[in-house]
């Protein structure tokens, strides 16, 4: 063992001089992977945003007109407002509901209640359903025809039917409900794992001090979950900003533009208007918004020294 170590030490100056020494060879595969599959598409989208590229295939020239036109598009204000409402409400809804279910499951497991595994599985089922299927399921539930599922149930209870999707304001709420229903499981799993890792000694000490349940939640659980909550919020925000599959099958962005969010607007720009440059400009805007929000969240992450 010592002999080997000695030999390795003797060879070390030669190895340092070699281009194959150091961390680079070990990092190269992952750098290549990120470069080819992540960085290149981003750079190409950035390049396309500065062109007049179209799916119709005319000659490509470099210009800033596509970006300026997209920023001046009268629909962009409505779309950004929809995106803010949809993302904000979805993130708050998913994190709060995910936290509530995680607390419920942990509490149930602590009290050895039966069915906790089944509860977790049921919640997760919604998460594995593809977005398009999620939209179709909710469009059947929200269907405003006399045979629509929810409205039929309301009629049985002598409650007047609700314009779930045809009223612009309700349509946004319905879209958020469908998205929260699907995304809650992700938050639940992240927060469930985080709650399980909280040192039980903290709760025992609080019990000795006579802390009530809401005080244990406020002074122990939530502060201990801070990092998990923020990371969860970042991931859910990015995921929600990119959501368009559920919306396209639920409302198609309508009525009018009432539920058209930035990702759907980008998709429509490319695949309906064949405007590749405009779509690329919008996707750059989405990237900037995602990065900006991630940076804002990161400011609230606990510092390493604070954790120590």
């Amino acid at each position, binding site marked *: 063992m010592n002999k080997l170590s000695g030999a390795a030490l003797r060879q070390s100056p030669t190895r340092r001089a070699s281009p194959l020494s150091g961390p680079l060879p070990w990092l190269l595969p992952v750098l290549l992977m990120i470069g080819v599959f992540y960085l290149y598409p981003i750079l190409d989208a950035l390049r396309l945003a500065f062109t007049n590229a179209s799916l119709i295939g005319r000659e490509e020239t470099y210009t800033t*007109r596509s970006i300026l036109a997209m920023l001046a598009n*009268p629909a962009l204000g409505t779309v950004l407002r929809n995106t803010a409402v949809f993302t904000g409400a979805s993130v708050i809804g998913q994190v709060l509901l995910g936290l509530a279910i995680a607390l419920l499951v942990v509490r149930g497991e602590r009290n050895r209640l039966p069915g906790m595994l089944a509860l977790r599985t049921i919640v997760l089922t919604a998460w594995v359903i593809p977005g398009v299927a999620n939209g179709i399921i909710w469009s059947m539930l929200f269907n*405003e025809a006399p045979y629509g599922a929810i409205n039929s149930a309301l009629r049985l209870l002598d409650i007047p039917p609700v314009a779930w999707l045809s009223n612009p304001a309700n349509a946004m709420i319905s879209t958020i409900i469908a998205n929260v229903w699907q995304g809650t499981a992700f938050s639940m799993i992240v927060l469930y794992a985080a709650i399980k890792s909280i040192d039980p000694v903290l709760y025992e000490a609080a019990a000795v001090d006579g802390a009530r349940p809401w005080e244990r939640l406020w002074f122990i659980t939530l502060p201990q979950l801070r990092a998990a909550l923020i990371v969860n919020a970042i991931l859910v925000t990015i995921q929600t900003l990119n959501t368009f599959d559920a919306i396209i099958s639920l409302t198609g962005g309508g009525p*009018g533009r009432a539920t058209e969010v930035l990702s759907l607007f980008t998709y429509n720009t490319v695949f309906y208007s*064949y405007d590749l440059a405009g779509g690329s400009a919008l996707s750059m805007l989405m990237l900037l918004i995602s990065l900006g929000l991630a940076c804002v969240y990161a400011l609230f992450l606990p510092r390493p020294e604070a954790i120590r």
Partner: protein
Amino acid sequence: MARPSKTSLIANCLGATALSLIALPAFAQESLVTRDRVGPADAENVLTFRLTAYDLYSADPATAEGFAELFTDFIQQHPGWRIDTQLQTGNLNEEQARILEQSQAGRGPDCAMIDSAQLATFKQAGVLAPMNDFFTEAEIADLFPFVRDGVSDEEGNLLALWWFTDLRVLYRNTEYVPEAPQTWEETEAAALATVEQGLEGILFNGGRTEGTAFDWMAFFWAQGGELVDENGRPIFHEGENREKFLRALEFVDGLVESGAAPQRVTTITTYDDITASAAAGTTALFIGGNWQYAQLQSTLPPEEAAKWEVSELPGPTAEERATGTGGWAIAALTDDPAKVEICAGIAKLYAGPGNAFQRLLPTSAALYDEYDEFAGAEFGVFAAALENGQARPGVPFYPEISTQIQVLLGEVLSQSKEPEQALDDAAAALIAAYDRL
């Protein structure tokens, strides 16, 4: 039970082998059509064909079986060939964009079904191969004029075969609406009468879908309105066209405001939603496509189906009528003449026996006489309505026009914008996009 002797075992084996050999050709015949190909797997020549899921791979077993037989006959008449089939998903806009992009990059299918609404885009992109050599002059001359214009380029080349057309008509349940409404006013009155009888009123597409814009355009066209000028620039928001556009908008807006149509029309994005309502008996009046007639006949019990009749879409007056005509084309996207010939053969297969099998509307007058399937009374109504048929403007900018009209109709029908404001906003967005694109 006695054990079989060695002789009888050998006889049984030989019998089974003989039966297998007899059955083998039949098995081979069946396997000529699979989920991803038509023809023998080891064929020398291969053509890739991207098709929709409404015929050979239809969810309806009878349709799929009928087309499998047609394709089997076709491939047997073209020995040495195999057709590799590629199915388009239900997201047709995205599929059409993908075909266009792949064809421009040289990776597209050899032959594909193209939505007639996208033909102008494909023509402008220059990816369609002329098929003139495989059609006689008489065959080309027999195409309906709007079809011939749609599939020909400036040099008169036939760039695709628009194999079936469709049109929009007014459906009514004669138990509730005995007489066909001829005007907008009569339509609103008839719809209100059905509402008084506990039904939903008139249904039509009003969500974010091409059908919404296209169905509604008939009301604009009925007044002689024009969407674009000869250069393809949108002009529907200017001068007389603006007045006509607003009148057509106010007609559908009035239907919702008066309760003659439910506000939920803004959520209707497929004709199937409307067929479902008709089948459920919640509506007695709707604007639909001609193909829904056969759907109703096959869905409803015969005595209920018999109550449904079709008539021309109403106009502002009984004399001013129009209907949007769509449909699908088949085009070759390859330079290989042998493949173009096979593609043209497939197009003829769909246009003739394929249309007859599905009872769709052929685009050539001669085919109506050739097949008995087009003898039904409803085809008389369709043929009369086709005289006022209007195809989408053959300009590549059409998808953007359609999108803006879908948005403004949604805004008007959901009462979130007044017709004038919605039109102004849509026109501003369209002109900005037109000037840039």
